[in-house]
């Protein structure tokens, strides 16, 4: 699989990473090198194989329905780069 500049821009937009025109070619080259190398997986026959996720663990543990957290607005907001009282703020969004 090979990426063209439009694909690089599309991926960057999906990932919310600003990519300047000057950078596109280099990024395209680096990504294509990695993708070309990854393509060796095409050699592997995975017929009938179930995909794996995490290690040797079993079913998910469930927790009791008790309020054990929250009530700490100041801590939650303590690192906010921008805030207004008890709210985080961002440039206005128009829907």
């Amino acid at each position, binding site marked *: 699989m090979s990426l063209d500049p439009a694909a690089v821009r599309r991926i960057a937009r999906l990932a919310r990473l600003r990519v300047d025109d000057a950078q596109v070619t280099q990024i395209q080259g680096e990504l294509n090198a990695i993708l070309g190398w990854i393509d*060796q997986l095409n050699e592997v026959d995975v017929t009938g194989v179930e995909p794996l996720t995490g290690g040797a663990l079993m079913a998910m543990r469930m927790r009791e329905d008790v309020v054990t957290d929250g009530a700490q607005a100041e801590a939650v907001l303590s690192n906010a780069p921008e805030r207004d009282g008890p709210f985080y703020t961002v440039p206005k969004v128009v829907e």
Partner: protein
Amino acid sequence: MFEYTLATARDALRARKISARELTTAYSGAISALNPEINAYITETPELALAQADAADAALAKGEHGALTGIPLAIKDLFCTKGVRTTAGSKILSPFIPPYESTVTANLLRDGAVFLGKANLDEFAMGSSNMTSAYGAVTNPWTRHGDNRPLVPGGSSGGSAAAVAARMALGATATDTGGSIRQPAAFCGIVGIKPTYGRCSRWGVVAFASSLDQAGPVARTVEDCAILLGSMAGFDPKDSTSADMPVPDFAAACKRGVKGLRIGVPREYRMEGMAPEIEALWQQGLAWLRDAGATIVDVSLPHTKYGLATYYIVAPAEASSNLARYDGVRYGARSAGHDLTELYENTRADGFGAEVKRRIMIGTYVLSAGYYDAYYLKAQKVRALILKDFTDVFRDVDALLTPATPTAAFGQGEKMDDPVTMYLNDVFTVPVNMAGLPGLALPTGLDATGLPLGLQVIGRPFDEETVFAVSAALERAAGFTALPTHRAGA
């Protein structure tokens, strides 16, 4: 003071031969002297350490001692430490002060440890050289004979490994997603273990690739690592992937010996172009184990060579999602933007380094519409085959012995032209993460230029005890006493 290992320092502290304050002061001094050159620490916390040391002395005076009372450690700057800046080696978190303590570091504090500071790392744990940190590269305390060009300590836990090797800490926490504990341990001539996935809690550890990340210790000896892991490990109900298993006595396992154990040698780990010194060291390791009473068995792990490609699909995919939260809204650095999209794009472009951005984009691509089946799904299937290789082999053997890295530490600036060249460093370590198994790296010899070379011991899931037993036996046989040029107490 710097002759003590973690184990012997602990004994000395308990016997009141030395005080925690003395020990911590010595190490803080080492940091002041050496960090400008080695750059193992991003954030130093000498006052905090001293306060913790004093508290440790008070406890020791009363005859109370936890597993690590008074032991000074470096904490990889990927672990959130409450009230102490945590950067993950990135600009995007440069102002971040966590209002919570990670479970692993809380466990260490519970056991009386002293925190000297936050250790440097590749940005967001993505790297094998510690060259991608926004806070500068880390210099390996080792240099080649007659050549003082700076070398990499390995990565991503380069700061942790360098700190231990240079005697700027008596031990350190680290994390391993594709080799980030074992490879820097090997490059810095120290010991490091990545435990079984689920053995240590990931709560409060900045996430890179959730199904692969594991916390683990680096230290001077196998026993030291066993002691540290004993404190770090344990079930955490706040982490859904945490294993509800009791923590065995890892330190005791170090004394077991290897009589009657079967040690597998996977033929696929013999790679084309591997340095002959590594092959020699590997054979030597097998001989030592044979002499100690183990049986050596040839085994096959047919899908080994696909481990790296699988890793470089799965890890970036998970990372691309895990790093989506770094958007400048709730914490961290923020760049200006006229609207929300611009805010995100500028903040992330300015805050992330090149390697992180590359991996986010690879990850975004392999998950995107039309490519998920061909890449991510396929990689998870190959991963299942890699695990099956190990499971099959472990029916017949108790542990595996392999080289830890394909080369010794390389120069800063080398392997930077092409990302793939750097990725090949992880060829021996990555399959272990893919299968969730425990793996330990220990130094067993030097190469011709005087740089340490390490071997890797791989074990069954949750059988770190056998890994420690085999590693300790190798350590005894190897008698590795070489020390790096740049170190405290030299």
